[in-house]
């Protein structure tokens, strides 16, 4: 069984894994990182989105062995010093979640979207989140939250 080394939310793990083990199952069932949920099995819904070396991936479509040597950040590792990430705060402020099942993936995808466009328009946000499905919100407040989160992240960068 291959042995992999992977850092998840700042903690280094060495794990023996079956080659077929999905990254999301490694996270959830071996490492206890259940903050990342599974919403489908065809990589359509995006609920399982995490950062793999700084870029968003759907962790149901990545094998654990592919994450060997990588740095993974999940929704659980996003905040710092007991404070939520500005994007998490913006989702709260704008009521951008209801049942909350898509939220971890949606927040990760939103942050990734800002890598390429730190001040996205509504259109850019809607297109950029196309791979993350939400059944509760109709996306209106998600779009608002991403804009608000982007502003606050921009301010955090400019004042640091």
């Amino acid at each position, binding site marked *: 069984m291959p042995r992999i080394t992977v850092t998840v939310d700042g903690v280094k793990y060495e794990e023996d894994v079956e080659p077929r083990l999905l990254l999301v199952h490694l996270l959830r069932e071996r490492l206890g990182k259940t903050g990342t949920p599974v919403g489908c099995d065809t990589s359509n819904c995006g609920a399982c989105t995490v950062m793999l070396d700084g870029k968003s991936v759907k962790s149901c479509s990545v094998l654990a062995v592919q994450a060997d040597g990588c740095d993974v950040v999940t929704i659980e590792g996003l905040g710092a010093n007991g404070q939520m990430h500005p994007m998490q705060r913006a989702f709260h402020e704008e009521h951008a979640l209801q049942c909350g*099942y898509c939220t971890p993936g949606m927040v990760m995808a939103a942050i990734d979207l800002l890598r390429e466009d730190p001040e996205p328009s509504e259109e850019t946000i809607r297109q950029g989140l196309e791979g993350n499905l939400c059944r509760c*919100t109709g996306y209106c407040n998600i779009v608002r939250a991403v804009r608000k989160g982007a502003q606050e992240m921009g301010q955090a960068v400019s004042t640091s």
Partner: protein
Amino acid sequence: MTVQEIGRPRRRKEDTKLLTGRTQWTDNLSRPGMLHVMFLRSPMAHARITRVDVSGARDLPGVVAAFSGQDLADEQGSLPCAWPVTEDIVIPDHPPMAVSEVRYVGEAVACVIATDRYRAADALDAIEVDYEPLPAVLDMEEALAPDSPKVHEAGNKAYSMKTVSGDIETAFRGAPVVIERTFRQQRLIPTAMEPRAVLADTDGESFTVYSSTQIPHVLRVMLAVVTGIPEHKLRVIAPDVGGGFGSKLQVTAEEVLCLVLARKLGRPVKWTESRSEGNLTVHHGRDQIQRLRLAADADGRIRGLKVELLADMGAYLLLLTPGVPLLGASMFNAIYKMDAYEFACTGVFTTKMPTDAYRGAGRPEATFGIERMMDELAAELNLDPLEVRRRNWIKHEEFPYTTISGLTYDSGNYEAATERALSLFGYDKLRAEQADRRDRGDPVQLGIGVSTYTEMCGLAPSRLLAEARFGAGGWEHGAVRMLPTGKVEVVTGSSPHGQGHVTSWSQIVADALGVPFEDVTVLHGDTAIAPKGMDTYGSRSLVVGGIAVLKACEKVKDKARTLAAHLLECSPDDLEFEAGTFKVRGTDSAKTIQELAYAAFTAHDLPDGVEPRLDSEVTFDPETYSFPHGTHLCAVEVDTETGQTRIRSYVAVDDIGKVINPLIVNGQLHGGIAQGIAQALFEEAVYDAEGNLLTTTMADYLLPSAADLPGFTLDRTETPSTTNPLGVKGVGEAGTIASTPAVVNAVVDALRPYGINDVQMPCTPERIWRALQERAQEGVRP
């Protein structure tokens, strides 16, 4: 000066755990020695099972047990239907795992229980099943033909019923206008984002079932009945639940089987569905053929309406299956006055996944039917669609109004909501642009759709449920406990799964008791913690459960007043209550409710006959429904060269009475409207000619993404309900009920110059393009 909590856009208390990944979805739960079950599912729509051999699976590593339906035949019971809508309804036996015959693709035929889910999945491949194919039964009209193959021995008709109000024959005889249309409510898959999951645990004597369910209380009763496990040995917990929309208002085969297997094996057993498994086996929604006939006078006044439904039950009757279409029975007449009304419905068995409640349940279907007919009537008479509605709707001064179907609407103001919507929408300007595009022969045509809806919320008065032959009551329970330190613990029988009850209930309690919003906590979703409840569906939580909590607060306050009078040595009538403090009128003598909670805890000095502790509980049964309403306007651009529809603007003005939290209300409307648009334009569960479901993934079943939807312009009018002390009406389903006809009316409006007066849902580019081609070949030119 205290700020009133009711009406404030409070940010939700629920959010922190959801945003930081500290949720307890059922699939997150684990128990020592826990086993995983996976089900082998039928690839045939209809077949006799001639052989099941699970021995190959039993020998594989990690496999603890494997069973066929036959192996469990004596202990698995039959899945319940709680709504025998007629005396002669056919309710077939429904084994959770098929024993001798399968009747839809996806029905479980065998299972493997293993130490992890990968091993269980491997072992499914080693099970052998032989089937003797039987004919699939897919089309409702063919299913009712005398020579049709039978889904069940008793035939393909589950029930039929008919009600008539007024003189329907006179209404139609000699009517200057009779419009007849047949609409198809396509089959939908509810698709909550959290797939279903169940964990059944046992200590050898009692059982705990964790399930992603909307109905922990109903589930407990039903699991006890189905499995024979005594109810008092059974606890049901709904942990964090990721959406339901009716799909988790069910007693599922998998819930029963996990419990049966935990009992059989003496170990915790968990099941989590995959999405493709879910698309096959989570109950589906809608699926009706609606034959509507409307008789009107030449000025557009409605004389009568005849509704004839065929409702696809699927292969079996699940918990509420037969009753769902009948929830629309009193709603086709909607906000309109008419002389006579006839409603008939036939429930039909087919070899497909059973249908049951999906957001709105019966009411979206009814609203679609009547709102489409109103537009057809307007077109026939060359009237503006809003004008024909105005000529027929109940005027605001006519409330309370008893409709032709017998419901009494307590309140409403259709004029006010419509006026507000028109001004936000810019109706006249859009009509002018539409005329211009038509004149120019613009390949992109503009369509304007109207939906002036009402619905019934707050299921339901138990007495009325009895009349409808429903198997349970519609009350709700609330308990309010002041803790010794002055904090408040609320227990609700409602079972939220995204609605934000913890926040809204906190606002109600904060106002009622004069305590800080932050000092209130709300417990729910566990039959040991919240032992009484009828759960969450049918937009009932606030109008039934929220009122129960409010009434419990009133009882707490009454007790506090008695105690305050005793401690302050005055008459209870001399006390005034404001901002959480009882004060003797005209003096500084006072006690806060927190001080009284502590005094009731120490119990050192209580009046005679007063029990220690400041708490109370109420079980509330409403006397009637509530009736939200509103006007939704939708503008679409339809590209007549590609058939593509784009929603250009969407305005919704809803009247849901008093609003507890506008942020939550708007969220419910956004999501509801999106789901209604999804039915109009995107979603359909498709079976092929052999009865295979083709839309088993989210790539095939088109849930709209952010890129597919517009923003919505929302506003409200506020006509308080007169039938409950808060004046609230319910909002969970309003958006879905209203939006589907608004969108389809807009699409048809865009295409009417091309000779098109209906497009079957979902109005996909292909359907629109084909309709345009057909008309063009017939020589119709705009």
